[in-house]
């Protein structure tokens, strides 16, 4: 991290060129390098991927575009359980993140006082620590002989979760519960930070006003605080759901073959089985599904100007 102090040189000086009024081309020159990068290494790959998904052939003989759309059909009929599972797990993790993250964001915004900076540091610092190492730590925490499993067992919670199909037997590791727990943990900061930003903007006097009008704390929260924090809720849920739906790290490290998500399938198809058309089709379907859901969600939430 020491390298950070040597801040990289700044962008070319915009005003060095002809003064702004005459320099109609200045914004285009400023945009050009960065946009080229995004077009070549972000947009163009999507087109390549689209073309790969309609190819047939084999590694040895090479692939040709044959408009073989059946790949999509075959991929979906084979892997719909993993697809559904990804959306379910990501949805559950998002809801858990919202429920767990809201009190902490609220605490930092309104109640922390002089502890505010310290708590913020503790929320942000994990960002800079390897998330893989932290995810592996959950293997220890949720281990079969560990305190979590024995506590849940004593409280007979495991019986309930077993019945619901979230866990199996005396284990938490390698079950859906462990994967959702890991996902929730991994993306929780992405929920807390936008929530905090939108809560912090709320004028504290509104709370006092609600109190003056005899609103009880819960009513104040429901009618004043929560609606005003909606931009944070929307961006927080998006920042949690999207990466969680494509994640394969948690399912691989904390789950089993019964908890494989669509990310695991794409990874295996691309890097191990080398079935590029199927892999490309799956990743295209995932992208389309998420873009569609996000668009509907943003429309519904009525915060189109948010992004």
């Amino acid at each position: 991290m020491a390298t950070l102090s040597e801040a990289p040189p700044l962008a070319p000086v915009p005003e060095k060129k002809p003064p702004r009024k005459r320099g109609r081309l200045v914004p285009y020159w400023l945009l050009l390098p960065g946009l080229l990068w995004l077009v070549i290494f972000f947009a163009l790959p999507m087109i390549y991927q689209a073309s790969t998904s309609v190819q047939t052939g084999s590694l040895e003989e090479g692939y040709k575009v044959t408009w073989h759309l059946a790949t999509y059909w075959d991929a979906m009929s084979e892997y719909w359980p993993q697809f559904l599972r990804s959306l379910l797990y990501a949805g559950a993790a998002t809801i858990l993140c919202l429920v767990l993250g809201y009190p902490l964001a609220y605490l930092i915004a309104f109640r922390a006082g002089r502890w505010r900076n310290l708590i913020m540091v503790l929320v942000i610092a994990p960002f800079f620590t390897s998330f893989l190492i932290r995810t592996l730590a959950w293997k220890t925490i949720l281990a079969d002989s560990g305190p979590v499993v024995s506590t849940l067992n004593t409280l007979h919670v495991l019986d309930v979760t077993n019945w619901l199909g979230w866990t199996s037997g005396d284990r938490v590791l390698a079950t859906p519960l462990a994967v959702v727990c890991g996902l929730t943990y991994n993306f929780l900061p992405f929920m807390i930070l936008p929530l905090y930003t939108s809560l912090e903007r709320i004028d504290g006097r509104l709370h006092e006003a609600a109190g003056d009008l005899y609103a009880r704390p819960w009513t104040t929260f429901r009618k004043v605080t929560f609606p005003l924090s909606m931009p944070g809720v929307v961006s927080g849920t998006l920042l949690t759901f999207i990466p969680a739906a494509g994640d394969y790290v948690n399912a691989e490290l904390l789950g089993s073959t019964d908890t494989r998500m669509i990310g695991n399938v794409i990874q295996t198809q691309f890097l191990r089985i080398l079935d590029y058309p199927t892999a490309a089709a799956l990743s295209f379907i995932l992208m389309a599904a998420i873009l569609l859901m996000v668009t509907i969600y943003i429309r519904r939430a009525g915060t189109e100007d948010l992004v």
Partner: protein
Amino acid sequence: MPVVNWLKRHFVVIAGLLTLGYLLLPNVVVTVFSFNKPKGRFNYEWQQFSTAAWKDPCGVADMCGSLSISLQIAFWATAGATILGTMIAFALVRYRFRARGTVNSLIFLPMAMPEVVMAASLLTLFLNLGAQLGFWTILIAHIMFCLSFVVVAVKARVMSMDPRLEQAAQDLYAGPAQTFLRVTLPIAAPGIAAGALLSFALSFDDFIITNFNAGSTVTFPMFVWGSAQRGTPVQINVIGTAMFLVAVLLVLSSMLISNRRNKQKA
């Protein structure tokens, strides 16, 4: 019922602190297990206290090599993404031009795309071009996904900037270059620094996109991933603990600096 009332009154504080505990629990475990002396290859069960790993953090083959590759990539990715992103941010805030909306959505899309989709599509591009996977393909990918985050961070800062300050500088006969270097740049600096810091963290920690586009190059996250199958050396926990401490110090100091600045202004 005083206990119930007390719980009710402090509900937010209690729930918030519990969440904080959930967030920090793995870091505590990583720290504790960096002092473990495991019996087998895996470091998942507590055996015996030992400081051996702390005395010899690079004692594992290839680990520190992968760490150094990750640091180099993160440094160059940060430099590249910060330069390109700052330019875009200035263009978007300071100028009105056609296709501004299109540019805005092109910037937004990489952030709204699951990583695995970007990773897979980039791999198909590289495969089609016959590019040699390794250091350069990782760097290209990292600059690509860090770029948007820099744009957002710098944009937020430049947007809140009072344009009259620059007009004032020009009224005082500052040339365009002087205005930029002495007025614009210092005001935009916190946004640029935030963008750079975020890029560094994102690049250094990225696994999914790197895993697809790395070829046989092994970055630190990839080393950790591999070790989950082969057996995790205690040294990984040492690095994890050290990273956490450095991060806390770094974030804390940057917060204190910006706090002091704000107080001076007020």
